[in-house]
């Protein structure tokens, strides 16, 4: 009996160890190291002294970190809200129309998904060129006679963040569309057909029947949007640069984090301690907001 159990145990160990080892070293260990490192003061790559929560205090209240941090956080919030309102509502609309087999839906479905496959880097650089003062967007505005609408889209503080967000929505709206399409296709046909035969209009059909039944996938998209908005980096890096220009107006937690860890915040040297503190803040925000979305989504879920 014991030999048999031992054999079973060694097979289990054989199967799970390689994977666990890699997850342990490259995901779990770094998580704990971030927490641990954030409690020390650092000289380049060497921890000097245990200083408790001093790094967090400096991040939240010490110049220039406090100004940069809250400015960046504000932009991440703008990213989240704009993406939720524009991209995910469009996704919901497209998903709904595709699920009702609107004429041409096969082609629409395939074309909408094209930009989702491209790297953010290529998309960012491409639109970075188009949004230049002499780029395609301004040329197009001139052709249709809207000369006064021409702007340095990435060079003016009031347009820069919004332009980058719109480019990101251009790239990604096909994703929620097809996730919602799959979710609506999973709603039992009888429900929709019965409502249709009862003469329920499109508007009521959507809000009263389909929406409550696809709450789980809405929750997933919200959580993915939270994670995505907190991780914005490449979009800024390619379109307005690591400093989040002009004048930090497009700065995000991601770019600030990178500058703190490797480059310089306002021409200072790399700060591992404060960088780790930012990392911990990103972890906590991701975890908390995702948890809230999941819990409130579960509350609204409806079972057939």
């Amino acid at each position, binding site marked *: 009996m014991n030999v048999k159990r031992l054999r079973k145990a060694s097979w*289990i160990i*054989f*199967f799970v160890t*390689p*994977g*666990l080892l*890699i*997850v*342990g*070293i*490259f*995901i*779990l*260990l*770094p998580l704990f*190291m971030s927490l641990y490192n954030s409690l020390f003061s650092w000289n380049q*790559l060497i921890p000097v002294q245990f200083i408790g929560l001093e790094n967090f205090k400096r991040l939240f209240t010490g110049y220039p970190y406090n100004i940069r941090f809250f400015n960046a956080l504000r932009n991440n919030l703008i990213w989240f809200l704009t993406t939720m309102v524009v991209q995910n509502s469009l996704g919901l609309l497209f998903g709904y*129309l595709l699920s*009702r087999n*609107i*004429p*041409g839906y096969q082609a*629409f479905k395939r*074309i*909408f*998904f*094209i930009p989702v*496959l491209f*790297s953010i880097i*290529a998309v960012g*650089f*491409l*639109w970075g*060129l*188009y949004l230049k003062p002499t780029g*395609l967007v301004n040329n197009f505005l001139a*052709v249709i006679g809207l000369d006064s609408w021409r702007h340095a889209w990435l060079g003016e503080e009031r347009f820069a963040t919004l332009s980058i967000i719109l480019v990101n929505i*251009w790239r990604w709206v096909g*994703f929620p569309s*097809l*996730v919602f399409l799959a979710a609506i296709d999973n709603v039992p*046909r009888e429900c*929709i*057909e019965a409502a*249709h035969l009862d003469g329920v209009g*499109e508007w009521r059909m959507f809000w009263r029947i389909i929406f409550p039944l696809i709450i789980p996938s809405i929750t997933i*998209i919200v959580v993915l949007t939270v*994670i995505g908005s*907190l*991780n914005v*980096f*490449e979009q800024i*890096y*390619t379109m307005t640069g690591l400093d989040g220009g002009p004048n930090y107006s497009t700065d995000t937690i991601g770019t600030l*984090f990178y500058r703190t*860890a490797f480059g310089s915040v306002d021409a200072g040297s790399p700060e591992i301690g404060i960088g*780790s503190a930012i*990392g911990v803040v990103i972890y906590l925000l*991701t*975890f908390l907001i995702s948890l809230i979305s999941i819990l409130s989504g579960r509350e609204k879920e409806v079972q057939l």
Partner: protein
Amino acid sequence: MITDLRFRGASVPKRLFILLMIVVMCVYVLLILYPLFNMVISSFKSNREILTHPFALPDTVDFTNYRVVWVDKGFNIYFLNSLLVTAVSMGLVLLFGSMGAYGVSRYQYRASTIVYMLFLSGIMLPLKAAIIPLFLIIKRLGLIDSRLSVIFIFIAMGLPSTVFILSGFMKGIPMEIEYAARIDGCNDLVIFRRIMMPMTAPAIALVTIYNAVPIWNDFFFPLVFLQTNTRKTLPVGLSTFFGQHATNWSLLFTSLSIAILPMLLLYLFMSRYFIKGMTAGAVK
């Protein structure tokens, strides 16, 4: 089907609604296709032509730009590096991921839930936020500027979702098949290789696309860890190239076409798989 949105037999307001929606969708289609088309035609133009006649077709179709970017500027090497890094990481993600999924879903033991949770812990944690400790670990391992650094990180990035999707799939395979094989004298490794792997093939195809696309496109980790030009992957190489040739729009559009068109071509032939694979994590 009767619930389809069709013009025929619909009331006038409904017809208008359908028409309006089709127009909205067509606008987005144009917004997708035209910028890509303009990118390709710009790659055949000179700088002057791009700035003075942005919408005109190129006078000649001349592939000199492509040769310059592909050969002289080293995009062939970036491309091969991306291929190498993606293939090796994906191979190991699939190997370790399917082994892990088998280990947590096909045996009954008390710690199985804990092991499963450990695998899944990475599914919500943004790995980017851990770049500082990752940097310290990779430095300790002596892998800075080695392609192995990003390969290890990509494997870690892919494992949680792979174990999640595959173990869900494997749970649905009846245990009796395994018992029968065991009576025939197969050991666990043979069962895994000869029975489980073939039976999970559809899920493996899904997981491959789900992970390979983000790995192929990843920029952040190669940016931090790969410094030598001949080791860079395509996204990082593209970024370096943009830094060096900021004013030569003709070459920039060529480099973008080289970065974007292969994926587009692949998608044309396998769009169904791409759509299913990429949404696999969010669709049950």
